[in-house]
């Protein structure tokens, strides 16, 4: 019996090494998607690069805590959003109490008001908004709103995945998303009609 153990150990080590390699390859295959989200969560390309590197460093060290078959991209983003919080991003309380008067149709209504209802039928009407203005408006959102909007609208995560990643209730995801998108449209409307 004592003689079998080294062989068993050897097999276990080999199996673990294979699992690890597989994990690393799967994680690396998602790097571009992880970066896209990271880039919109922070202000600069350099910060995004650092954040993604730290995320992968931590992920590779704690790969055993990932459950195979679950959503790896969400698992990586959870590490990333936590690191982003830890990196002393300025504590900024979400203005949850501050009412956002404008509705979801605000931007569309503004454009229709200034150019007539039919303008909305034009296929490329949204392209009146410059790419810069969209990036700037996203960056200007309060952190909590931005995290949620970026995860759902850029990362294409479900409400449930976003809730899991940010460790907040799904109802909070919905309200932050709602308010974040409204704020975004208010900012865009200023440009669209000016």
């Amino acid at each position: 019996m004592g003689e079998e153990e080294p062989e068993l150990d050897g097999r276990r080590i080999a199996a673990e090494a294979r699992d690890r390699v597989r994990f690393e390859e799967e994680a690396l295959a998602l790097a571009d998607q992880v970066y896209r989200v990271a880039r919109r969560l922070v202000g600069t390309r350099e910060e995004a690069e650092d954040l993604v590197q730290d995320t992968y460093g931590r992920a590779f060290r704690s790969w055993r805590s990932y459950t195979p078959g679950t959503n790896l991209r969400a698992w990586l983003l959870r590490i990333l959003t936590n690191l982003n919080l830890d990196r002393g991003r300025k504590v900024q309380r979400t203005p949850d109490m501050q009412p956002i008067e404008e509705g979801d149709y605000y931007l569309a209504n503004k454009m229709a008001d200034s150019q007539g209802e039919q303008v909305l039928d034009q296929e490329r009407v949204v392209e009146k908004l410059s790419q810069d203005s969209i990036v700037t408006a996203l960056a200007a959102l309060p952190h909590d709103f931005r995290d949620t909007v970026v995860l759902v609208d850029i990362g294409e995560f479900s409400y449930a995945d976003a809730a899991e990643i940010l460790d907040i209730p799904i109802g909070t995801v919905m309200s932050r998303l709602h308010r974040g998108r409204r704020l975004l449209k208010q900012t865009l409307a200023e440009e669209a009609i000016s």
Partner: protein
Amino acid sequence: MSHGPCDACEELLQGYLDRELTDGEVLQAESHLDGCDYCRRRYRFEASLRQYVQTTAVERMPVGLMEKLTQLRSADG
């Protein structure tokens, strides 16, 4: 101008675009959109805005980052 039933539609629109509504809510939103030009225009606008934001805000990973990440894998292995 009052939009009675449109207020309910506006309420459902974001969830509809996110495909996060219940079957009942989807029916409610779609039956309203079928009969309402005002909301249908806004639905199309919101859908293209969503897509535009997504494509506009996407920035590809910088060249060289993948290599740095790949180097991390053997760091303690």
